[in-house]
């Protein structure tokens, strides 16, 4: 978790330097920083809950019943 935070801190600094060099608007700064923070939080959440929850579980939960229903029909459900 600390390593993820460290990587994101480096990233934030790097992006800040890039935006400053290119003289971007305040709106761009806001969007980029908000996005970095959002992805940071999602990554930490994914890492912290890795034993209880993975993205594969979500996809399986949503699309597997749909796949069975549409593609395989009743046959595979039996």
């Amino acid at each position, binding site marked *: 978790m600390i390593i993820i935070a460290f990587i994101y801190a480096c990233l934030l600094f790097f992006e800040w330097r*890039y935006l400053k060099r290119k003289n971007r608007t305040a709106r761009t700064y806001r969007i980029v920083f908000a*996005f970095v923070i959002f992805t940071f939080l999602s990554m930490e959440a994914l890492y912290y809950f890795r034993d209880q929850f993975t993205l594969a579980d979500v996809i399986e939960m949503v699309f597997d019943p749909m796949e069975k229903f549409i593609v395989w029909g009743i046959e595979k459900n039996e």
Partner: protein
Amino acid sequence: MNDKYEKVTPTQLYMLFSLYLFTTILSFRQGALVGEAKFGVWVSLLIGSFGGLLFPYFSYRLAKRRPTRFFSHYGREIVGSWLHYPLVSIMIFSYLFSAAFVLREMQDFMVEVFLPDTPDWAVTSIFCICVAYAVRSGVQTIFRCAQGVFFLTMIGMLLIPVFVMGELNKDMSVAFLNHFDWKGIGSGSYLVASLYGQMSFILFLFPFFSNQQKTMKSLIWATVTSLFIICSNLIPTILIFGPELTSNLIYPELELIRYIRAGYFLENLDPVLISIWLTSLFIKISLFLYVAILILTHSFSLQDHKPLSLTMTILMAGISLLMVRTGADLVRLMGHGEVMFLIVTEAIPILYLVVDWIRSRLGKSSNEKAKA
């Protein structure tokens, strides 16, 4: 407006998609595909590829209506902001997830076969540095990479069947014409269609193309080329190992390459061929990631994609490491929902096309009424 972008020629498009299409099937889906369709695998490849080509065709039809504008800019005019942004988020997630999925498959392959005891994160991060560099440099770099490795990859892939020619069990080849399990062929086609249908992201890259009328032609030729490459490797694999063993091998293509005994100095040819093979995977991952970043950039109305590229690359690496617990879960996911997930996201442009078509028809008729 159009001139400020770097252009992609139809030849570059053809070369990239040829590489893009055969890599995943040959590298990771061969076992699953042969397991489903057995000897009828070539039929399921044909049906699946041309069926899957319908998705990019509809995308192309939609993109052709506004050839100089990016989809993420005009999409909300078609279905309205409330529906557009959730749909676009699903598409961004889908491309990011696809990139992460391929990266995970590649990472498992490298760790299992060539780099045992190397931590997963090390392989992923080194690969991600390359991907981040390519993606940050832009679409032209990715297409030029594909152009650079195209001939080398083609020669490499076509050499493999030539080297193993002596080992083939030619008596088995008659089974390709008289063993058809239509149910298996159907599920094989479904798997192939989801992979070929992913080309529907041409919608987002359309303003980059220089000769837009030839887009579909390039894609059809890329499909034909990739089918040729896949069959030229898949058929010898089945003729050497038989369908049962092929479907139970994790990496049949690797076993086929290891079967080559071309001479003493070519004894260990596999790392060379696999490095060629990995380059195509690198192009595929970069392209998926680039498309995800491009959609995000346009949705936020930013000037260029660079400030978001590193963040998205790290997110992709994170998803790829944390998306499943073990390699077995990855295989399970492929048979439980992933294909449907891909097909649903590929079909989103069709929804836009239908709505746009209805709106333009209604607009026309109301205009006519107003004139009358």
